[in-house]
């Protein structure tokens, strides 16, 4: 299963070991972990609640993983994204990519995160001293994803 949406935490070592288990072609494993910050947009964050759209979210993540595998010379990829209530320092998202060499693995990992940020249906709500607020989408995330659109298959980082 290349994608999972879950409330439970994940163990990075275990996930990486499972993804590359028995695959002797692998010479590079790139990973990214997103975590909850205690400050966002100049306000203290005490909790963060993540919501998704069951059915569509999994489908969108699978499409992003398929696109990464088609675009980059990598063997496998995994996305685990948590939902529900999280606290500062908690892990939110894990992306792992395996390949023969580091360049494609790094690129695919970054591509996956950039696309996930703008295309996967998740929404964050923060609790701050002023109450709860929905996090607004950032233009910088759209720009990060758009940079890949000009780059064709086999291209390196934008």
């Amino acid at each position, binding site marked *: 299963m290349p994608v999972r949406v879950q409330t439970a935490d994940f163990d990075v070592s275990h996930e990486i070991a499972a993804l590359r288990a028995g695959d002797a072609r692998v010479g590079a494993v790139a990973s990214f972990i*997103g975590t909850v910050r205690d400050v966002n947009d100049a306000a203290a964050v005490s909790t963060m609640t*993540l*919501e*998704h*759209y069951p*059915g*569509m979210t999994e*489908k969108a993540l699978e499409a992003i993983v398929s696109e990464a595998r088609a675009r980059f010379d990598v063997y496998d990829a995994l996305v685990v*994204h948590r939902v529900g209530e999280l606290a500062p320092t908690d892990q*939110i*998202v894990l992306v792992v990519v395996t390949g023969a060499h580091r360049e494609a693995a790094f690129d695919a990992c970054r591509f996956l*995160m950039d696309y*996930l*940020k*703008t*295309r*996967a*249906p*998740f*929404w*964050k*709500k923060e609790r701050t001293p002023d109450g709860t607020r*929905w*996090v*607004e*989408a*950032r233009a910088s995330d759209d720009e990060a994803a758009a940079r890949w659109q000009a780059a064709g298959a086999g291209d390196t980082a934008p």
Partner: protein
Amino acid sequence: MRDAPPDSLTRLNVVYLARLREAFGVAAEPLQLPEGGSTVAQVLAQLRARGGTWAAELAPGRAVRVAVNHAMATPATPVRGGDELALFPPVTGG
């Protein structure tokens, strides 16, 4: 006399997510479609016509995303009875 079609053939399931669900105070509702089907743009106009929060949140220019049957849609995307249409703000995961 012609039999009326079952509800599933004339009704759309509309799903509201995140900020929109809270603003409207509803997570999902069936919506009667005009005969002959409709489009995303027509459904949005139908919801805006309720006025108040509906008109404000779905006003042209507001960043509202639409998915039909779990695929991102445009204003021209057709909708039919039995479809699931979801309305949500731009995504903020990761």
